[in-house]
Every structure is written in structure tokens, then in C-alpha cells.
């Protein structure tokens, strides 16, 4: 079996990114949108780790990936709390139902 090259990893990262963006754009459920965000972040993480293995980026790439995992967790915690609060007030997490603020 030959070595898997950089391009294969970047393709996986790009596919994850596109899936995430499509998910963010089409989902009406608030939790679904947040899942799309996680996909995008992890697509970027695959890129970072692949670049750190194959290019001169070195250890930086892996360090960034670790930090991003932590930040994604923090962001998800706050986002879920906000989604729960939205549910308490509106009895739905459909993002399209938040239409009271307009003008």
C-alpha cells in the first residue's frame, strides 16, 4: 500500500467543510445549525494536522488543532445554553421562528 498523500487529507477536510456549510445553510433546527459549525471546525482541524505532517508548518498545526477542539467545546456549551433559553421562551428551536426582531 502506498503512502496516503497530503491531497487525500485536504480532500477530506474540504468535504467536511462543504457538508458543514450546507448543513448551516439548510437546517432550520438550531441544533442542526450548530452541528454544521462543528463539521466546519473539524474540517479545518483535519487540514491543520495534515499540513503539520506534510509541510514545514511543524508542531504549530497540531497545537492549533488541540486549541480548536477546546474552543469548539466552549462555544458549543454557550450555544446550547442559548438554544435552551430560546426554547424556554418560544417553545421551539426552529431558527426561522425567531422573527420578532425586524425593521
Amino acid at each position, binding site marked *: 500500500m502506498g503512502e496516503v498523500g497530503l491531497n487525500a487529507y*485536504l480532500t477530506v*477536510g474540504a468535504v467536511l*467543510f462543504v457538508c*458543514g*456549510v450546507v448543513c*448551516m445553510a439548510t437546517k432550520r433546527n*438550531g441544533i442542526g*445549525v*450548530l452541528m*454544521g*459549525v462543528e463539521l*466546519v*471546525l473539524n*474540517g*479545518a*482541524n483535519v*487540514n*491543520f494536522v*495534515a*499540513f503539520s505532517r506534510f*509541510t*514545514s*508548518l*511543524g*508542531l*504549530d*498545526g497540531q*497545537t*492549533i488543532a488541540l*486549541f*480548536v477542539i477546546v*474552543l469548539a467545546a*466552549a*462555544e458549543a456549551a*454557550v*450555544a446550547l*445554553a*442559548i*438554544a435552551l*433559553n*430560546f426554547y*424556554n*421562551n*418560544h417553545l421551539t428551536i426552529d*431558527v426561522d421562528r*425567531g422573527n*420578532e*426582531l425586524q*425593521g
Partner: protein
Amino acid sequence: MDFEALFKQFLSGDVAQQASILRSLVIFLPELVLSGSIVLMLAARLVSLDRIIPTHWFALLGAMASFVIVLFQFWQFGQAQTAPVEVFTGLAIHDEFSIFFRGFLTFFLVFVIALTVLTGIPDDEDAPDFYSLLSGAVVGMMLMSSANHLLMLFIGIEMASVPSYAMTGFLKGKRRSSEAALKFVVYGAGAAGVMLFGISLLTGILGTAQFSELAPRFQAVFANHAGMQDPATRCVVLALLMITVGFAFKLSLVPFHFWCPDAFQGAPAEVGGFLSVGSKAAAFALLVRLTTSLAGDGTGALSQLSLSSGLALGLIAIVTTTFGNLAAYSQKNIKRMLAYSTIAHAGYMLMAVSALLVLQSVQSDLVFQGNHQQNGPRAMEGLLYYLCVYLFMNLGAFAIVALIRNQTFSEEIDDYKGLAQQVPVLAICMAICMFSLVGIPPLGGFYGKAFIFASVYEATNVHWFMWVVLATGGLNTVISLFYYLRVAKTMCIDARPADAAPVTLAASSSPALYVMLVSGMVVFLGIIIDPLSKVALHAAHALF
């Protein structure tokens, strides 16, 4: 170097390395003090100390202490004339520019905490949460202003954004507040994800994440590449576009501004004031740092990069100011109007960055060389001065909105009719802030705009497009006159309807003194320009 070697080096305790870590920690002291005050606030609640000493005293003391430390660092820097110092193995940088912004942000934090104490937005039960979010966001913004590494850029932005989402939804029982927070967090998380993907592409192609090495690597990679046919070029352009998305979200630039009016209308006015000044200032500091280090010395391929990104930002600035001003015109809710005005002002400030980049692109050109030594820093000076004036005028406007809300429970502009008869102090201070936001001399806003337009005018020597930017800026100032003056007219000239809720505020009460102090600073910065503009110029020189 692999991990094991690094770990061994750390354990073996290289004296020079330990000294540099110690030095970094000393430089990092303002952030540490703020973080310490957060821990204190939370610990105080644990032992019910907050029932004896109100939490805002911890927050206020922490903010003041870190502001004093930043002032001391500024004085120290001025004494020794030292070169910029890279701290934490180059993750962050310590120079006049970062000192300026850290001072700006901690000073602003003191004012915001004072405002929340006067208007009483977090009740005693929620105060530790609110102030720890507020101080935490400011720590993130301070990291943004001293970032020297793409990782730091992302961490800073996230650290500033995540507490902002929570603060927007802070009024838990309100439908509008929760809707605003959900919109803000969904847009924000999406923009951050796209930005991170852009960063991953950029670091991968250039093989570094250090700001100072971006430009040389860019030169090396693109030394013999030509045009957009080349995949590497296209990839870098894509990466820069994605990073721009993240910045456009933070700065609420068109077409990523949707969250801004909704978040500001749903959030308490105090939080709106905080977001409109603090996160904008930090994002501009970061944008300037990133773009100036990408533009480097402006030779070869860098000149092209700098010019085209400058023009692209100019185009975004034009669209943003025009859109913000036109949309503000038809607003009935004052916080929504101020949100659109924030969008428009972000556009004006972006013009300074655009002018800076366009000027940077010709710095190696012999024809322009003589002028360049001054023009780049001048553009930055304009941006910094504008930000300082903007702090006072926007904070003043939001403070008045919060004070009136506490008595009438309304934020509609129509309910402000004839307030001058009942609370002349608020009406006059609001008029000052509004006139300054338009940019009428002799108020501070005029000089901020004048500095920025002057540097855009300088940039017209380089590229004709900057004339368009300049003309749009001028035209927009005229458009903005109408809606700002409408607020002033409603408050000062119209008669108070008989059934309107009465508003009372003694001229010597502390909220009135606070508002007078803030709007007094707007007038002061319009009359005595020299000290602040000298400091701003000094800070700007650190980047060149």
C-alpha cells in the same frame, strides 16, 4: 523539533528560557489581573461574600488596576525607547500599538462597569456572572490587540465572542433577548468556522502561522508564480476571503451585518454599547496587525497583494457606510438605529485601513518614498483617534438610552418627544453625541472623520478608486445628518405629549454626572486635539 525534545528542554530549565517566560508573564500582567478579578468574583459568591461587598467593586477594581498597569507599561516604554518585544515564544507582541489598545479597552471597561452600576442592569444575584463575562470578553479583546500568531488571532476572537453571545441573551426571560442571542451565536459560530478554515489554508500554503513571517514566506512562495491560473494563488485568495468573512462578521460589515441590528435591539443597551465599541476596536486592531504584516515591505508580489486587498476593503467600506446610513434612516427603535449607525461607522473606519494598505503598496516606489514615511502612520493615527472619540460618543448615546429606558420602559424614538422639558441634561448630552456622530465641528467626531478623509485623500495619489471612497464618505456624512438630527429634534424641539410617562433626573445625581462626563469628553476631544493625536501617532509608528 519534536515534542520530546521540547519537553526535555523545558524540564532541564534553560535559564534564558525561564527568564523569557518570566518576562512574558510580567508583560502579561494586565490580563492576569483581570483574570484574577474574575476568579475573585466567582470565589466571593462561593462564600457569600458578595452579600457584604457588592460584586461590581471587584470588577471595577480589577479593571482600574489593569488600566493603571497598562499606563505604567506605556510610561516604561516611553522611557526606554525599547523595540517591540515578542512574548510567549512569539505568540503575542508587546509594542506601543498593543499598549494603546490594551489601555483603550481597560479604560472602556471601567466606564462600562460604572454604567452598569448606575443603571443596575445585572441584579445582585446575576452580577458575578455578568461581570465575569464582561471582564472575560475584555481579556479576549486584549489578546486580539496583541496577537502575533494566527492561533492567537483565533483564540482572541473566540474569547471575545463567546462571552458576548451570553451577554446578549442575559435577560433570560425576555423573548427578544433570547432571539437576539440565538441569531448572534448562529451567525458568529458560522463565521468563526469559515474563518478557521481560511486560516488552515493560509498556514498550510505559507508554512507558518507567525505574523512576522507571513510576508517573507509569501514572497518566497510567489516569487515565480504568475496570475490567477496558478492553483497556489487561487488558494491564497480563497483563504484571505474566508478570513475576511470572519473579520466582516466581527466588524458588522455588509454583507455580514445581519446579526448587528437584531442583537443590539434584543440585548440590554449597556451590552449594546459595550459590543459596539469594544469588539469593533479590538477587531480593527487585529485587522490592522494582520494586514500590515501581510503587506510587509510592499515589494514585488506583496505590492500587488497590498493594493488589491486595500481596494477590496475600500469597496466593502463604501457599501457598508452607504447601507448602514440608508437603513438607519427608517428606524423607529433607537437601539436599532444606533446599530445601523455602528455599521456605518465601521465603514468609515475601514476606509482608514483601506487607505493604509493602498499607501503601503507603493512604499518601495521611489516616486512616493518621501511621502510614505508619514502617510502610513497618519492613516493609522486617524483610525485610532476616531476610535477614541467613538468610545465616548457611542457610550454616551447608549447610556442615555439605558437611563431613559429605566424610567419609561420604552426605546422607541417617538417616546423621546420633548424630553428636554423634563430632563434637559439628557437631551443636551444626547444632542452632543448625535452631532458628534454626524461629524459637526468643533466636536470630536469631526476630527476623527477629518483625519481619516485626509489619509484617503493621500491615497488618491496611488489609485483613482480612492476618489470614489472619498466621495462616498463625504456623501454619507450628509445622509447621516438627517437621522441623527431627527433624534436631537425629537428630544429638544417637539412638545412632550400629555400622556407620556414622566422622566426625572436631578442634574447633580450620579447618572447625570456620568453622562455629562462622557459627552464632555466628546467636546474636549474636539477642542484639544494635540495630546491624544500625538499618542495615537506614537502608537501607529510601532507598526512601521
